């Protein structure tokens, strides 16, 4: 429902629809659960909701931005294709353009006449996600 209402608007790196769905779902679920379950079950269900949110975020992010998923979905359409032909169809230029567009909309960079400037100040949420990924990478 929230996808129908909010479309694909982003509050980078999340979609607004996902944030609304997460908040509304948790508020309603927590209110209802208070009447039926003890605290430890409520907290566990809240943790499960957070995990579900994290999983949906990653899957949608994977579909939208991952080159490997794009290659697989392209191959599903092409059935069989010469490797050289495919490397001409999906190029590094496309990959860079899409990423620069996303960085630009999230105000991470500024583009002026093909000159790219990296902005060092980021939002709290973006910083948080960046450091979570850095932490996970170091594990």
């Amino acid at each position, binding site marked *: 429902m929230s996808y129908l209402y909010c479309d694909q608007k982003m509050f980078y790196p999340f979609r607004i629809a996902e944030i609304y769905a997460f908040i509304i779902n948790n508020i309603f679920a927590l209110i209802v659960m208070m009447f039926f379950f003890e605290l*430890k079950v409520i907290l566990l269900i809240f943790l499960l909701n957070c995990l579900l949110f994290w999983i949906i975020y*990653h899957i949608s992010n994977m579909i939208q931005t991952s080159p490997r998923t794009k290659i697989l979905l392209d191959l599903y359409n092409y059935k069989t294709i010469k490797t050289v032909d495919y490397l001409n169809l999906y190029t590094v230029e496309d990959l860079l353009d899409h990423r620069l567009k996303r960085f630009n909309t999230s105000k991470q960079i500024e583009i002026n006449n093909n000159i790219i400037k990296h902005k060092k100040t980021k939002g709290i949420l973006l910083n948080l996600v960046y450091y979570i990924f850095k932490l996970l990478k170091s594990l």
Partner: protein
Amino acid sequence: MYFFINILFIFLFVLISNLFFTSKDNFTYIKIAKIYLIVLFIFILFSIKFNYLHFNQSFNTLCLIMNFMFFISYILIIGIRFINSPSYDIINYLRKNNLCEKNKILIYLKEKKIIKERIEILINEKLIVSQNNTIRLTDNGIVFCKTFLLIKNFLGINSEG
């Protein structure tokens, strides 16, 4: 108690898989999923044997669901340990060379052979097969694509790459 046992299980699983999968050459998603399912099965058997798991207690069942969801979350992010996301490479390049031309980033990315490297990983994962300079999906790849197409259409998102 069972909650903390599950957390300990996940923690140990992550630790052991990090020691086991040290490079991208010996890592595949199928391998890690198989190992997890086997270890989870043994874990459930031991939980029942030592009276920690009773299926009539919803809390314990929820703990097992949590365990599985932690694994799904882990498997979705483990890939970044072995291969950098192009976004990560671009941002790192920009941090070192702020105010640079688009062409320079393009040259840097071309040197890394990002797309070719990913095709090789997919071949290693047995999701695609390469024969006579052509590539096509394997049966596993088709299942993967059908699942992702379903999710993609449900969420209404485009695959940009």
